[in-house]
Each structure stands twice: as structure tokens, then as C-alpha cells.
């Protein structure tokens, strides 16, 4: 399997919804550090967390997360 990193647009969606990391963390039931480490790519979230984030912003999960080699 090729080693494709995970990219995300959480920061963009947070800015659009005027949310801090803490706001988003509280909304989906995780810690602020979990959100911040996902944003900077230090932590690859579980499918459940990815779906919770997508559901919170009311968009498909692919709009927030994508593989780095997708261009």
C-alpha cells in the first residue's frame, strides 16, 4: 500500500464557522489537543472522529479529509 498522508481542511471550516479548536472539540466530544494534532497532521483520526467532524460541519467527509497524493 502506498504511504499517502492525510490532509485536512478543518482549520478552513473552523474559520468559516467562526469556531475555535476548543469549540469544535467540545461539539464532537474530544479534547482540544486531539483537534489541534489532527489539524497539524500529527494525529490521524479514527473514522468515527472524521465522520463526527464532517457531520458537525454538515459536509461529506471527503470535503474535509483527503489523501495527500490526490493532488
Amino acid at each position, binding site marked *: 500500500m502506498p504511504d499517502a498522508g492525510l490532509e485536512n481542511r478543518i482549520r478552513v471550516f473552523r474559520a468559516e464557522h467562526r469556531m*475555535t*479548536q476548543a469549540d469544535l472539540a*467540545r461539539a464532537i466530544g474530544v*479534547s482540544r489537543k*486531539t483537534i489541534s494534532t489532527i489539524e497539524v497532521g*500529527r494525529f490521524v483520526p479514527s473514522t468515527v472522529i472524521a465522520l463526527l467532524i464532517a457531520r458537525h460541519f454538515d459536509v461529506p467527509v471527503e470535503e474535509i479529509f483527503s489523501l495527500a497524493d490526490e493532488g
Partner: protein
Amino acid sequence: MPSSITSASPAEAKDRHIRMAALGLLLIALKFGLDATAHFVSPQTAELLDYGTIAASIGAVLLILPLVFYKVFRLDPRDRAVYFSDQSFAMDALKRAQVFSWSVTFLLLVFLEILVDEPGALAPEFYLQVALTVMLGSAAVAFLVLSRDPGEEGLDA
């Protein structure tokens, strides 16, 4: 610090508790390390080290006991699913720290197994104390390093 962080959510509490448990493990490792060191020093110095082991033990209890108290008495049943969820950065760091600790301890035990066959080997409890020091200490230090905070980024970031 935003008010949403200071009013602890179960997820924030869990992160903080894992860190406290790691610090508790570090103190227990220190206790075993001092016990192991006592095999090489004079009785007077060993007596001084005893005070260190007592202090480390009390510190570990003070760090870990509130966590047990929180889980048993303070944790709202509605928050249990979030609190005990393993889907967080801190839990991921803890798992990676445990894997690192397992590897280090395994190598150490192989080394000690060779060492005990040598003449002049120390009492068995010394080897157990060394193994416990390394196992707990490496897990705690690895967790504290892996879980460093990348910093908060608010709306303006």
C-alpha cells in the same frame, strides 16, 4: 485560556488524567530506581534513599488516587462513553508509549538474563527493580514526549 477549556469536558479531563497517571508512573519508576540504587551504597546512604522512595510513593498515590476517586464518584454516567473512549490523541500517544516501553523492557530483560549467569550476580529483587524502573520510566517519559502540545490555534490562526 478560553473558558471552554477551564470548564472541564470529560474529554479534557481524560487527557489531563492520562498525563497525571504518566507522572505517577514516573514517580513509581523513581521509587524502584532508588530501591535498586540502594544495593550499591552504604547503609547510611540507603537510609537516605528510603526517604526518597517514601516521598516518591506518596507523590504517586497523590497523583493516581484522585483519578480513581473521579472515576468512581465524580464521573457523570452520561459522560462515561466520552471519558472512556480510546479515540483521542492522548490515548494514541499512550499506546505508542506502551509499545516503546515493551520493546525497551524486552531488550533489558534479555540483557539481564545474560547478566545473572555471571559470577557475583546481585539479589533477584535488584533485577526486578531495574526492570520495573525501566518499564515504567520509559513508558512515562515516552508518553510525555509524544503528547507534547502543538499549541492552541484560534480563529485567527
